[in-house]
């Protein structure tokens, strides 16, 4: 009979074990395979239509900015809600909550980020479109996409930990995606038009920092130098900070977008009832 045996494993070891097994489960999920396939097919089609890597990448950018938040936030949240009972079983094991949270986060984020990188890179390998101009642009797109995955899986954790009811939680996730992915820029533009005679540039900068999708778009377009697609907030951002300064600041803000919801979700996970 086991009296109180303490595990010889540290928190990192425990998180690692959970992350590996969780990743194994997530990597076998059909939606993840379909997602990687969809990115590959979209990339391949765009490459064929555009005729060259850089043009295809600019088009692919719009697919990425819409698809990644959708998959990471909504399917991520659905996956976490489905795993709730097993999470409770793990919580009843001798594991610190924070170690479990880190393991679960990595177990969802790493497979999703890996599939994203694979789905974005594969068409360029298939079509042999990797030249000296395309490679750095593709690397940037992959890096920013992986950051977006980290942001939106952290948000998915935040939703599932704070909203207990699955239907309500998924509703919140859908609204968050619609808001950030589709409506935000329109609302910002409407505000900018309405108050065009006012000095609202600073407010617009804040508005951009408040939306990780806008930040990702700005980083990519500043680097790809496609100002016409940048949108209102992106244009203000470039005017205020220049290309390099703007891209650096936007990257820092995007990293903060990973940290903030992750920390809030981890804190809620530590304190919540299951």
């Amino acid at each position, binding site marked *: 009979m086991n009296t*109180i045996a303490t*595990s010889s494993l540290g928190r990192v070891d425990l998180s690692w074990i959970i992350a590996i*097994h*969780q990743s*194994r489960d997530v990597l076998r*999920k059909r939606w993840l395979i379909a997602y990687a396939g969809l990115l590959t097919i979209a990339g391949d089609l765009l490459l064929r239509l555009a005729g060259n890597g850089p043009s295809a990448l600019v088009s692919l950018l719009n697919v990425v900015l819409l698809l990644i938040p959708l998959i990471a936030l909504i399917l991520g949240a659905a996956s976490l809600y489905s795993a709730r009972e097993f999470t409770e079983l793990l*919580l*009843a*094991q001798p594991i610190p909550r924070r170690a479990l949270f880190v393991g679960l986060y990595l177990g969802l984020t790493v497979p999703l980020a890996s599939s994203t990188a694979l789905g974005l890179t594969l068409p360029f390998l298939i079509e042999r479109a990797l030249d000296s101009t395309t490679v750095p642009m593709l690397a940037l797109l992959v890096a920013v996409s992986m950051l977006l995955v980290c942001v939106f899986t952290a948000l998915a954790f935040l939703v599932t930990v704070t909203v207990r009811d699955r239907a309500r939680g998924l509703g919140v996730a859908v609204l968050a995606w619609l808001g950030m992915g589709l409506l935000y820029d329109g609302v910002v533009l409407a505000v900018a038009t309405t108050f065009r005679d006012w000095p609202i540039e600073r407010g617009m900068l804040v508005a951009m920092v408040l939306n990780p999708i806008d930040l990702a778009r700005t980083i990519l377009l500043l680097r790809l130098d496609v100002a016409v697609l940048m949108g209102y907030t992106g244009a203000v951002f470039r005017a205020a900070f220049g290309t390099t300064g703007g891209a650096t600041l936007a990257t820092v803000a995007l990293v903060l977008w990973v940290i903030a919801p992750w920390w809030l979700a981890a804190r809620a996970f530590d304190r919540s009832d299951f």
Partner: protein
Amino acid sequence: MICVHDVHKRFGAVQVLRGVTLALVPGRVTAIVGPNAAGKSTLIRSVLGLVRPDRGSITLADGRDVRLPAARAALGYMPQQPSFPDNLTGHEVLAMLDALRPDVVPDGTLLERLQVAGQLDKPVRTLSGGTRQKLSAVIAFRYRPSVLILDEPTAGLDPLAAAVFKSAIVAARDAGVTVLLTTHVVAELAVLADDIAFLLDGVIRFAGPVAVLLQETGAATLDAALAALMQTPAGSVPASAIEPGAAQRVRIVREARS
């Protein structure tokens, strides 16, 4: 042993537990019984450390809070609805949990007795509900717990597996394990339970041996005795029924009979 002392828990406007005090004694099977929404699940989840009481404490015999990760090494848990990662095989689930407890040599006895090992090389999503329940039972016993917490443990098990499982519970009890279980099957209570803790509206209305419950209620059968307890007017009994360490002492709700 587990000491539940003056535990209160509120979810929003609903006060689910109201000063629950209970001692779960080694070598005895204590069944938590009560109608739906009486607070049974919340009490079990509190004992597991999944729910944080607003007030009160839940400790092991050495005084350690059950919410401490090291204290949970003593617990074996079988939830009402077993759920595992769909795309892992049963063996992978066991391997994961084994890896999380490297200091304990896993006990494979129940795995053999339930004859489930052959099915565990398939993904969990392809397993029947009964096989998942067997896997859940195997996990509860696998790490040689000194406290077993079983939530409706035989629901979904075939009669043969249920018999094997009940004998495993009895053997664990005889070996000195503290067993806490919930079930709606009165026949199962009659076979397994040494003590009954009857929970109504978040208050323990009775806690003590089954024989004393029958004697005090004057009922011939356990279900008649439980029905008598259920008719107790709300608020007619004190918030706590027994003190920690005194599980054999009985406080019977006599209002039910008067």
